[in-house]
């Protein structure tokens, strides 16, 4: 069977990072705006109930904030969206906490930190905060987290005809693990997409899987050092090449997908 083209419409975008609080802020930086003087610490998404929010780790708050923004912009009820959450690195602060505790004499773990350490904690907090009973997937793809998640979500959108929330997030890596996982930047990005034939306003995106053993991540238009670092080191921020394509929809971009395939993406103006 021949591979189908995958099509969907982007109807909402959300974003959060140390120097931007939303998609508008990120676009300004991509367009060459100067970096704000102060670095933001972390979002405090109001949708998470206050007592839960205090205990919510940074990756959870990042993912929930950017997801909430995208659903607001799309003008849809969050609980109507099937979700795919992805992080290339996971919550390394909690990995660090658990491994340090378990390497010590007293191995008692905090039950809250333990249940927050599951990779699907952001998906869990999101579905709990918004009352979403739809399927919520939580995946990992290391350096290919972005292309694999676009593939997974666009396939689900197409085959099940369901509107989808895609959220990409990665937080700075705990000290001990930086020799293996270098990222020191905070980043989250979300998309709300609808099936291509849905009666909604949105930007049509087409993806194709092709055989390609050589693909590398495309160069960005932006020449900002900050954006460059983010793109190079933060696996979730690889989505910036798609973010630029949405604003400059000429031609297509090719993302590495696996050792033998790549994902080609084009979008309409």
């Amino acid at each position: 069977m021949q591979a189908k083209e995958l099509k969907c419409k982007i109807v909402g975008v959300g974003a959060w990072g140390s120097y931007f609080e939303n998609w508008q802020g990120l676009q300004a930086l991509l367009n060459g705006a100067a970096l704000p003087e102060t670095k933001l610490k972390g979002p405090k998404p109001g949708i998470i109930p206050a007592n839960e929010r205090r205990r919510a780790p940074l990756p959870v708050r990042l993912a929930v904030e950017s997801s909430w923004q995208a659903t607001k912009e799309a003008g849809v009820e969050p609980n109507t969206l099937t979700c795919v959450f992805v992080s290339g690195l996971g919550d390394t602060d909690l990995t660090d906490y658990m491994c340090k505790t378990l390497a010590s004499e007293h191995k008692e773990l905090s039950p809250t930190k333990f249940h927050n350490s599951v990779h699907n904690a952001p998906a869990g907090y999101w579905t709990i905060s918004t009352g979403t009973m739809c399927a919520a997937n939580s995946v990992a793809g290391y350096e290919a987290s972005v292309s694999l998640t676009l593939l997974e979500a666009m396939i689900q959108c197409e085959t099940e005809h369901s509107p989808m929330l895609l959220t990409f997030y990665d937080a700075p890596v705990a000290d001990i693990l930086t020799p293996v996982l270098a990222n020191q930047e905070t980043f989250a990005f979300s998309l709300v997409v609808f099936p291509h034939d849905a009666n909604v306003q949105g930007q049509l995106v087409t993806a194709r899987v092709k055989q390609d053993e050589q693909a590398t991540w495309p160069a960005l238009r932006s020449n900002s050092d900050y954006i460059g670092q983010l793109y190079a080191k933060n696996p979730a921020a690889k989505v910036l090449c798609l973010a630029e394509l949405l604003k400059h929809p000429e031609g297509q971009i090719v993302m590495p997908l696996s050792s033998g395939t790549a994902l080609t993406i084009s979008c309409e103006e």
Partner: protein
Amino acid sequence: MKIDIIDYESCSAAGVNISALRASLRQHKSGLIKNNLPGSAIDTWVGVVGEIAEVNDLGQWQSRNNALAALGYAQGTIRHTVTNLINQYGAARIGLIMGSSTSSIDRTEEAYTKLNQDHTLSEEFIQPNVHNPHAPALFAAHLTGIKGPSLTINTACSSSAKVFATGARWLATGIVDAVLVGGVDTLCLSVLHGFNSLQLLSANPCKPFDQHRDGINLGEASGFAVLQRAGENDNGRGIRLAGYGESSDAYHMSHPHPEGLGARLSMTQALSRAGLTPRDIDYINLHGTSSRANDLIEGKLISELFPDSVRCSSTKAWMGHTLGAAGITEAIVAMDTLSTNVIPGSKNLETLDEALNFSIKAADETKVCQHVMTNSFGFGGNNCTLLFSRAE
């Protein structure tokens, strides 16, 4: 679109491969032992796969989790089946989807016990491809030679059930001609001490759905299955993925929804996707962890949704709760009844919970089943139900 299961293998404390698992099931011989994990004094029972220790030549890929994946992949015909598919379609046309909850955190734990004096990682643990949540699929791609899209699903204890749903969707769009799905999770201090902190572990062999159950036993396992579109293979196994359901509880990170609303949704979705009614189901392999809450909620739900003719069991007393590998381990137990015509009993069940009344029995039943189901529920309220049928 119809999806066939053309091969499968399972590796757990109840059997290093599917033949050994079948023998343990028939003999009601459990693989659970008293916890003897180095560095852990927790009083509980665990399902350890002893043969993992023999897989110590993985070099930069070494971790207990990867060793268990390699051990499982070496069993039965699964490697042969995948290699044939690669030769037939090309490595880039085969997809790979692994489910796991711990990935290789066992290796990160070990690294932290062997840090350099300046608290940095020592040389042998500089393994970027191992210390990240995608490690299971990165390693499996290396192990199998698969070059198509390779994804890891980490939704706690539903991880390796969801791989079947994702695999079916990938096949439906034609981006691949076959998919190897798998699950792997290993015993490590994180999960033992984590579940202990939640007061969920039992000091005794677990007794799912029993009046006197007092918690779960953890185990480790790997499992694999190969999926293809029906009509594009000779389907010697005669098993089809008839439906799946995926849902969220939207309730709590570590407690199931008190009325099982999310679980209900995943079961009803699987039935409707398969075009079946509850009375069509012959056997349900339950999530059945042996925790007070899970078994009570799941058991009540089964009696509300299914007639008495549907036989149910939990098989966790054989190999323990294998977390991210439980989905595929129990999917294989369920689908294998279509080959063996034996429904496994619910091991260690003596007195059914007085609050429950549904068709669960400790004894095996010989029956030619047509349709079987399995449930997997995970932290974060993440639910998945799979439905397998005899291919017509």
